[in-house]
C-alpha cells in the first residue's frame, strides 16, 4: 500500500510562536522549540518527523505564512 510522507520547513525568523500550528496538526508532529529566534520567539519545528503526512493544516492556519509543506507518495 502506498504511504504518504510529508515534511514541513518553518521560516524560523518569521515565526512568532503563536502555537496555532501545534494545535492544528492532527498527528502531533509540531512543537515549539526551546531555542529562540532573533525576536526571542520559541519558533515551531518538526518534533516527530516520521508522523507527518503533509496535510498542510499547519500551513493553512499559520498567520505569518511561515510554513512550507512537502508531500510524497512512498510505495512499500
Amino acid at each position, binding site marked *: 500500500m502506498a504511504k504518504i*510522507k510529508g515534511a514541513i520547513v518553518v521560516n524560523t525568523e518569521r515565526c*512568532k510562536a503563536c502555537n496555532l500550528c501545534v494545535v492544528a496538526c492532527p498527528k502531533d508532529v509540531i512543537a515549539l522549540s526551546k531555542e529562540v529566534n532573533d525576536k526571542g520567539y520559541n519558533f515551531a519545528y518538526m518534533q516527530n518527523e516520521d508522523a507527518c503526512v503533509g496535510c498542510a493544516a499547519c500551513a493553512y492556519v*499559520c498567520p*505569518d505564512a511561515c510554513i*512550507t509543506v512537502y508531500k510524497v507518495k512512498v510505495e512499500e
Partner: protein
Amino acid sequence: MAIQNIIKPENLVYTKSKILTDIPMHYCPGCSHGVVNKLMAEVIEEMGIQEDVIGVAPVGCAVFIYKFLDIDFQQAAHGRAPAVATAIKRLMPNKYVFTYQGDGDLAAIGTAETIHACNRGENILIIYINNGIYGMTGGQMAPTTIDGMKTATCPYGRNNEVNGYPLNITNLLAILEGTCYVTRQSVHNAGSVRKTKQAILKGFKNSMLGKGTSVIEVVSTCNSGWKMTPEQANNWMVENMFPVYPMGDLKDL
C-alpha cells in the same frame, strides 16, 4: 524516508504566496489578520490579477496592510474606505477594488459610508474583520462587542441595557438591495480557512460582474485584547462569538 528526499521542489504542497512580501507582519502572534492577509495574497496570485487589483487600507491594526501585500493600495481616513473604493472603482471600472476593514472602522465610525456604499451597489469587495474589540488602541469596547464580554472600557462585561446591543452590521447589509454576496466566515481551523479563501475568490469575481457589493465578514480573534493565548481565543470565539455571529452565507445572488 529521509527528510531531505521529501523536501524537493516537485513535492511542494504549500508555500508562502509571492504577493505576500518578506516584511514581517506586525500583527500580534496568532492574530487572525495575518491569516486573512495571507489568503488575499493567495487568491490574487491564483487569479493572476496582481497588476489589476487596488486595495483600500483602513485605520486600525491592518493600517499597514500595504506593506504586506505587493499590490496597489490607497489609505483611507478612518471608516471611509468604502467611499474611497467607490471613487476608485467608478474611475477605473476595469480594476478589482476591495476594502479591508476592522469592526471599529467598518461598524463604528464608518457605518454611514459602509451602508451607503452597499446600498448604492458599488461593485467592490468589502472584507470585514470582526473581533468585537478595538484592538489597536488597547482593547476598548466596540459596537460589535458581545453581551457580557470584558474589555478595557467595560471591565465588568458589556451590559446591553447600558451599552446597547452588539451591532450585527452584516445582517443589516444583507437586506440591502445593492449587495449581491454577503457571507460570514472565520479562520480558526484549516477547514474554515479554506472556506474563507473560496469566499474571497467569489467576492473578487463578483466585483467584475456588475452584480453589486460583496461583503465578507471574518469573525476573528484578538488574543492580545481579549487577554488570552491564541488557542484559548479561538476556543472562546467558537463558544461565545459564533452564537451571536453565526457562520454561513446570508445572501448569494
